[in-house]
């Protein structure tokens, strides 16, 4: 109990001390907070973008087979379906029709997809919220398209997809297979790619190798490979940003080190007074520890909150041009808060702990000196 009261009294004095040097401490707090906010923003943004990408891919097929011609993705004949289905371990194979369409009227890119289950009737489309917004389309409105021959091709909006699926459906236009083929001039018997389901997930690499041997002009892509690619891309991007920010971090460390390690004559005098009136070295160090902790914890918590607001409420306006832009992510969506506690812990140990320790070292030197200097004024 006495120790709690003692710590409380030391904290009272520490806070009063901090308030005395308002300007200096406020400047430090602002810089410190901004550094934490910048680093935490990169961490939050990277983590949540990766989570978004993972969420997008969670329903992705286990194995996608694309046809390659001269190193480019080409339409694939549906005759490949049977060949792949004959491989042991393959549960099912089907062709997919999908592609991108640029609408020059509204300057938007749409993803056109023929759904496997209950596709719209001929002449009808279902559109995502983003498409509905950008094309000002409502149910029963007509959406004009241009075919690959340049002819006008109109489809009627049958429904707008619910807002809850916006992340994965914002730019989506669902249409029938016939309309898709008409629009892009795709002959019968061709698909954009094939998707395969396998009985045992651990067999995917083997099956992929068999497909590549059986159909040398194809490229099988496993879901895990796509995830790994995204991970690598976002790690690389956040690495670049962190490298840029490391300059700011270094400047902050120099500033903080200077502030923390250099005791002013006034501070030395005060330590002398405290020792003379009966504080021991431990009490003085405890005071400095609380001072460093109060300042750095405030900066840490404020910085993390600012980063949260920046990334999840402000759309990470400062960093998004560098970190986003991967084609799987739709042009406009709100990031779902996703935080890696381990990363936060690393940030904590990289900022709060060194600063707090740095404040104690010079104080320890001053506090271990004999207090009689104060007797001499």
């Amino acid at each position, binding site marked *: 109990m006495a120790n709690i*009261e*003692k710590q409380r*009294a030391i904290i*009272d004095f520490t806070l*009063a001390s901090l308030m005395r040097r308002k300007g200096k401490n406020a400047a430090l707090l602002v810089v410190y907070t901004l550094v934490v906010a910048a680093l935490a923003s990169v961490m939050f943004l990277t983590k949540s973008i990766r989570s978004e990408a993972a969420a997008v891919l969670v329903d992705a097929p286990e194995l996608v087979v694309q046809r390659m011609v001269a190193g480019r993705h080409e339409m694939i004949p549906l005759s490949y379906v049977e060949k792949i289905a004959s491989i042991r371990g393959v549960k099912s194979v089907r062709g997919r029709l999908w592609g991108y369409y640029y609408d020059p009227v509204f300057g938007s890119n749409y993803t056109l997809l023929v759904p496997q289950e209950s596709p719209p009737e001929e002449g009808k489309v279902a559109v995502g919220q983003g498409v509905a917004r950008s094309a000002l389309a409502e149910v029963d409105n007509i959406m004009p398209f241009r075919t690959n021959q340049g002819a006008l091709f109109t489809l009627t909006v049958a429904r707008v997809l619910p807002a809850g699926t916006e992340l994965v459906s914002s730019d989506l236009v669902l249409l029938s297979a016939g309309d898709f083929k008409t629009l892009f001039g795709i002959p019968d018997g061709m698909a954009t790619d094939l998707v395969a389901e396998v009985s045992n997930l651990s067999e995917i690499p083997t099956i992929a190798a068999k497909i590549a041997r059986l159909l040398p002009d194809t490229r099988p892509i496993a879901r895990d490979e796509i995830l790994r690619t995204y991970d690598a891309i976002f790690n690389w991007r956040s690495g670049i940003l962190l490298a840029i920010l490391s300059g700011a971090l270094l400047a902050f460390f120099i500033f903080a080190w200077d502030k923390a390690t250099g005791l002013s004559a006034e501070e030395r005098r005060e330590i002398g*007074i405290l020792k*003379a009136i009966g*504080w021991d070295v431990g009490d003085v160090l405890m005071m400095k520890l609380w001072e460093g902790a109060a300042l750095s914890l405030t900066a840490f918590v404020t910085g993390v909150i600012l980063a949260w607001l920046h990334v999840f409420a402000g759309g990470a306006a400062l960093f998004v041009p560098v970190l986003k832009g991967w084609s799987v992510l739709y042009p406009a969506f709100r990031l779902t808060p996703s935080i890696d506690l381990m990363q936060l812990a690393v940030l904590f140990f990289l900022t709060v702990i060194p600063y707090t320790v740095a404040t104690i070292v010079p104080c320890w030197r001053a506090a271990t000196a004999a*207090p009689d200097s104060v*007797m001499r004024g």
Partner: protein
Amino acid sequence: MIVLNQVSKVFNKGRQNEFVSLREISIMIPRQQVTVLKGPSGSGKTTLLSIIGGMSRPTSGRVTLDGRETTSLPERFLAALRRETFGFIFQQFNLINGISILENVMLPAVPNGERHATLKGRALELLAMFGLEARAATRVELLSGGEMQRVAIARALINNPRVIIADEPTAHLDSKLSGELITIMERLKQEGRTIIMASHDPLVCNAGVVDNLVEIRDGEIRDSAPAQ
């Protein structure tokens, strides 16, 4: 009783700028009396006070307080001794700027772990005793010299010390305030405290409250006698 036995203090020992501040000082300071260390500037009064008060250690010799040797105590115990046994009144007051009178007075008791409300109550009582209760929340740098002096005394008394050590307590005071200080010292003596002051101010040295006068010059005791 405080006993100093062959106490010497040498600064920068073994270096070119070695300076002997005290030479084999041996004195006895009786309890519950007022003892004044008298001498010119640089005579070693302040060094002697800081050794008696446990703020620095002698180069040689021993100091005992009521029979207990203090010179070889570890730093932690020495800090406790300073806090619990001695109350210090410094020449420059040495108050901490930027915080209130009340906070300054409470500071020496912080390491004791006393309940905040109790400690605050005691500090306010002390301030009331010196007529400063109404100004408890005032920052110390806004005080007059006399008020600072009284705050410094209140701070010295917060842990109810047996011994008051005052270094040139009238150095920054006019005659009226010096008179007030001597009155306060009389009161503290009546309360049974031992008072040790360093001064070359005749107002202090010739005050009726003084029991013993120890004259120091060049780090040596020239004369030690009961005051006239």
